[in-house]
């Protein structure tokens, strides 16, 4: 038996199939992963992502601390509630984790991955030594993600007036506290939606009201296919401590200038010699399913492997992300001894319910 979120009993009551996810008993689906996927693209779904790690950062040196800790530029956050997505790198410029951080009245609010929690917290603590920075984990809060074209309309139906006003005031990638709820217009699906951090009892109540309003419970299985279609990396699959953000399709989140964040020097050196690998999207136009670790070939040459692959319910074909050493030529993937041609593309594959991927343009 693993750790359980505060919604565990509700998952069981909803018929969830539970699996171990980094030590947590989490719902992988509630019957059909594909139906759940479509529900988010076409209507609205609710995910329990309370296993993720929330950290409050406060103290006079918070900004300079995050300027040191993050590859993205914390000083881009000028408006209350706005968020950035960033990699946290080690000294060799490799990815320790990816995260989202919001500017809030008390300082900053950060959400990091569950599987990397202990490593991240230890690293963040170490980097804060000698600075006026306080780190406080918020294990008391649950997190619900409500995603899909009808997400806002259905949340608005079940929350009170002040919360509705907060929801309606939020810009994309912005979050605000209202009493003990933090409501953010963010997500991990490529669909419109919100992520709400709130106390356990309130989360149970909100979950039940959303489900009664027609929002479908969604498991981690559909969360993975939704984020893959959305072109979003999954830490541990698409990047880890063996690769740089430049090799992970995250160059746009690295702000160098004259900054001196942890790993910046390594990134400068990598740019001067050119990244050894790159992360690309793949589309399979024939039948079959691309899966993680399948080998990728350019002509006869083995040039890399798939990092994440799945059947895309929206596109009705298989898609993948792959880390390769070249993006020029004719590509194929070996699926269980069979070699099949694949198209190289720029993720995302799907945004707001529509196919959006573009053929890869080699530099």
């Amino acid at each position, binding site marked *: 038996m693993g750790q359980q979120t505060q919604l565990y009993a509700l998952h069981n009551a909803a018929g969830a199939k539970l699996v171990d996810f980094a030590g947590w008993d989490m719902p*992988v689906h509630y019957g059909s*992963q*594909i139906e759940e996927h479509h529900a988010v693209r076409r209507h609205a779904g609710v995910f329990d992502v309370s296993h993720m790690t929330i950290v409050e950062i406060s103290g006079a040196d918070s900004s300079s601390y995050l300027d040191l800790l993050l590859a993205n530029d914390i000083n881009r956050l000028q408006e209350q509630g706005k968020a950035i997505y960033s990699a946290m790198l080690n000294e060799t410029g490799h990815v320790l984790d990816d995260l989202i951080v919001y500017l809030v009245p008390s300082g900053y609010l950060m959400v990091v991955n569950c599987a990397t929690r202990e490593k991240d917290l230890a690293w963040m603590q170490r980097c804060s030594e000698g600075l006026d920075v306080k780190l406080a984990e918020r294990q008391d809060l649950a997190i619900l993600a409500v995603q899909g074209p009808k997400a806002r309309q259905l949340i608005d139906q079940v929350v009170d007036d002040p919360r509705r006003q907060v929801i309606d005031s939020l810009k994309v990638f912005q979050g605000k506290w209202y009493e003990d709820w933090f409501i953010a217009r963010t997500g991990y699906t490529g669909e419109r939606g919100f992520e709400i951090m709130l106390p356990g009892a309130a989360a149970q109540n909100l979950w039940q009201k959303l489900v009664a309003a027609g929002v479908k419970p969604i498991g981690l*299985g559909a969360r993975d296919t939704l984020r893959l279609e959305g072109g979003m990396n999954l830490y541990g699959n698409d990047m880890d401590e063996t690769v740089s953000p430049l090799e992970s399709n995250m160059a746009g989140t690295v702000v160098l200038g004259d900054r001196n964040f942890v790993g910046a020097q390594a990134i400068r050196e990598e740019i001067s010699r050119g990244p050894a690998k790159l992360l690309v999207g793949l589309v399979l136009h024939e*039948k*079959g*399913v691309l*899966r993680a670790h399948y080998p990728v070939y350019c002509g006869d040459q083995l040039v890399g492997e798939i990092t994440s692959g*799945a*059947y895309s319910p929206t596109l009705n074909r298989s898609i993948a992300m792959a880390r390769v050493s070249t993006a020029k030529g004719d590509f194929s993937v070996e699926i269980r001894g069979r070699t099949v041609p694949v198209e190289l593309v720029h993720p995302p594959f799907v945004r707001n319910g529509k196919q959006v991927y573009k053929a890869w343009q080699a530099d």
Partner: protein
Amino acid sequence: MAEFPGELHYLESHEWARVEEDGSVTVGISDHAQDELGDVVFVELPEIDSEVIAKQEAGVVESVKAASDIYAPVSGTVIAINDKLEEEPEIVNDSPYDDGWFFKISPTDLDELKSLLSAAEYKESCEDDAH
């Protein structure tokens, strides 16, 4: 709870075999297997008139979770395949023992069925896997 129809023969690798009145053998995957696999997205079937060998690969089923080989329960010639699975692989989840059948074999030796598991034995083997 998964169903384990008593009239079928099973492989530990989760295929079922049913002897039809005409002596042919219909093959599919069990209710337990479809439940473990999750939504089936793609099925690769043997070609009609091809020869299959007992307990050797005869096809592939791909689900949202994994790819699995399909083993032939008995040796023989493939005399029919379920074309519907091409467009609607989800039938395997909805009706694993009826509409979701995979292929039919004209068996070389029906005695090969004797080495397969009964419903009770197969159910026990699934329960063992879960522990």
